[in-house]
């Protein structure tokens, strides 16, 4: 078997397993955990366009998630517009906000950029908590919005069972992974990486660093908003603390940093590792230590940063390649 065939085979196997899982796994709880796992992998991959490729650390992505969730929910509740259309509109809204936020903040470096984005995300949450009516739109302040589960079906992105949600988020995840892979091999990907690592050198090589970052930000916030819509339709109840929370922004960054920023596999590996920790610590220790998962995340993050500063994807990809070598090449005899 050649190396390429083996890689194709393992990818196909992975696809079959992930698509076939709901046929075996009947428990809605476990399906829900998996749905959230994919959702976070999706969110982190979207975040990675800015946080990984462009080399900055945005910590306010929950705001875009919230913009998506609120846009589609308000449109659905007040005007009966399908959440699928809400996805597009919410995405566009988030892109516009993302670019407006990016214009001044991309001039900042390191921690200052991170702090500015935290402030933006938190500001957004406090605003929504204190606004009942934004013009004609009813945001209902801190009480949040509830979507009555009527007219279930694909057209309204609303289902009784978990399986359809599972497939939708799985397809979204695969699509976003393919998109980021394509970008990483394109001119934009090269320019983002160059501008993130050495902005002065990149500019001298013809890269308009600020414009590339804004394009990445627009894409990233658009994709994040789509996840917000999905989440709103999954839980059918959103409120500021659930969709615009700082915890969400931080968890995305945790997953990315531990998995490996700037790589394609990093966000998925990070989510695979951290989401179960988060869910099971909430199930088993939620009543004793409600924030236990964050303590675990912090410890893991410190360890990873000390021993594998590029994230866990690096040693894992190396191990995978070594495995490939061993499986595909016959041990050659030394002459």
């Amino acid at each position: 078997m050649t190396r390429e065939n083996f890689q194709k085979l393992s990818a196909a196997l992975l696809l079959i397993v992930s698509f076939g899982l709901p046929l075996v796994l009947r428990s809605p709880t476990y399906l829900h955990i998996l749905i959230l796992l994919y959702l976070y992998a999706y969110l982190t991959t979207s975040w990675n366009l800015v946080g990984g490729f462009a080399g900055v650390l945005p910590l306010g992505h929950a705001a875009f998630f919230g913009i998506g969730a609120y846009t589609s929910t308000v449109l659905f509740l007040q005007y009966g517009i399908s959440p699928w259309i809400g996805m597009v509109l919410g995405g566009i809204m988030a892109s516009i906000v993302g670019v407006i936020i990016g214009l001044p903040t991309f001039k900042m470096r390191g921690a200052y950029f991170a702090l500015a984005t935290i402030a933006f995300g938190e500001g957004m949450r406090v605003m929504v908590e204190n606004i009942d009516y934004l013009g004609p739109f009813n945001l209902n302040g801190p009480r949040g919005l509830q979507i009555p589960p009527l007219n279930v079906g694909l057209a309204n992105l609303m289902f009784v069972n978990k399986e359809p949600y599972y497939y939708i988020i799985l397809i979204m995840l695969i699509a976003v992974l393919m998109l980021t892979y394509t970008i990483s091999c394109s001119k934009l990907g090269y320019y983002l990486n160059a501008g993130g690592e050495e902005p002065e050198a990149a500019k001298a090589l013809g890269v308009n660093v600020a414009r590339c970052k804004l394009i990445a930000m627009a894409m990233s916030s658009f994709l994040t908003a789509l996840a917000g819509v999905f989440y709103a339709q999954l839980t059918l109840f959103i409120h500021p603390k659930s969709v615009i929370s700082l915890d969400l922004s931080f968890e995305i960054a945790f997953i990315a940093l531990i998995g490996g920023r700037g790589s394609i596999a990093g966000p998925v590996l990070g989510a695979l590792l951290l989401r179960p920790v988060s869910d099971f610590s909430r199930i088993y220790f939620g009543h004793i230590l409600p924030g236990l998962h964050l303590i675990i995340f912090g410890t893991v993050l410190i360890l990873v940063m000390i021993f594998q500063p590029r994230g866990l994807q690096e040693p894992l990809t190396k191990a995978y390649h070594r495995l490939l070598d061993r499986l595909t090449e016959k041990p050659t005899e030394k002459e």
Partner: protein
Amino acid sequence: MKILEVKNLVKNFGGLRAVDDLSLTIEEGQILGLIGPNGAGKSTAFNCIAGVYPPSDGEVYFFGEKINNHNPWDLCKKGLARTFQIVKPFASKTVLYNVTVGGYVHTEKRAKAEEKALEVLKYIDLYDKKDMKAGKLTIADRKRLEIARALATGPKLLLLDEVMAGLRPTEVDKMVEIIKDLRDNGITFFVIEHIMRAIMALSDRIVVIHYGQKISEGRPEEIASDERVIKAYLGEEYGVS
């Protein structure tokens, strides 16, 4: 034809005048050297020309077009490339990746950008190391990588900021050969250099600046015997009187 013309360039940093009334021209196909003691304003002059700093006063013309307030990336697309005194490789990426970034200037296609990058890497003798991480290169190779990246953008004028500092004598000779060969292939050079042996061997003409002002200009042998230049480098008491 004049490829670059600098007229009465001034750059102030607060109360400090780093470049003071500097004028010079470079003809197409020439190698112009820029020398001067530490802190004379050489790199600042480069940064003003390359669009990093806007000049406080004066004009810069590239192929007759005024480029005072152009961005570095636009200048690069027009054919004005530069290297940095302190090398700035994209350290976590491979050598090929580094050069491909430059190769993307005139194309959207990765294949074309990489083709250009490989061509440059072969030419500059870094092809064997194309898959190495740029951060793991030796200083000599990093300097060559700086030039390779700039060459991949297809420049007409290349500003080299001390690309020979820190190199061994044999490496310096090699670099001189490379630059001369590139000039013969139609690239004009504006070179800052501290290694006198190299700049004398390389330059068609040399401009000397001191405290931001031009104190001498001429062919290398004229500069070497110019009293003002010797005084600037060695101090007043060393004048050949």
